[in-house]
């Protein structure tokens, strides 16, 4: 997410392909190093949608379709 952009595709690939997984991990770390938060949208069994915040690539479910990065929360005025 970026001002004026709305949605930006940072990287895509298949985690089952080692080379692509490495690229995904690099992109993931780069975003976290920039201070972004990462979330995986999920659906619970009851049909309720929620997000799972992840701090490490290993926490991302293997079957996740996408990880969304957004700026870290800061207390507003």
């Amino acid at each position, binding site marked *: 997410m970026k*001002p004026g*952009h709305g949605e930006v595709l940072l990287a895509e690939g298949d985690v089952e392909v080692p080379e692509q997984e490495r690229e995904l991990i690099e992109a993931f770390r780069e975003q976290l190093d920039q201070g972004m938060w990462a979330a995986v949208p999920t659906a619970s069994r009851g049909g309720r*949608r929620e997000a799972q*915040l992840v701090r490490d690539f290993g926490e991302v479910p293997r079957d996740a379709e996408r990880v*969304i990065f957004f*700026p*870290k*929360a*800061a207390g507003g005025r």
Partner: protein
Amino acid sequence: MLLALTAAGIVIVALLWEVCWPTVSEAIERHRARRARVPTFDYDPGRERRAEQRARELLRSCVNDEEWEMYRDLGFIRVWGTIADGPERGAARDPLAGAPYAYLIYPHKPIVAFLPQTRRLLNEYCVEFPDETRPYGSARLPDSDDVLAKWMALTGDERRLIAESNMHLPGRQVDPRQVQRDLWRLSEWERQRAARERRQGSVSTP
């Protein structure tokens, strides 16, 4: 004689160089500056609109149908709270601890916590998601991205978001009368939605 003329010529050239070089140098610099490509961020009136459109699509793909329709029709999303004792209300022993509570997420406004049964407003949680890379000189996310960021942070780690935010009493930034109106609009909206679903259900069921 030849040597003297050569020496005089060299001296004249050197003097002329000294005199003319600053002017020539300045002219070259001006020429380069005119031809240089200067990065400019021309104002594009459609940029924010396109960004918002993409942000809405992203939001729609993340939240459930009810939440999306709520945002589309009413301009905010209600998220149910999940902390067993309820959000902090400042009192050591709160008689309302454990009562179901929820939040209203508005774009670029504080998150408002309330009790759905009584419509009592609890707190405002002021939180922002500034993009410090400022690609177009602004750290402000598109409206729907701001809502999505709040939704993800709230449903993903409610305690963390509440801890990061600044808590205030209701009415500091969001007009309580407006919130009360929104809660009434929400109840009407839910009533009509339920009726519509009942009708559709009775039509589809022979």
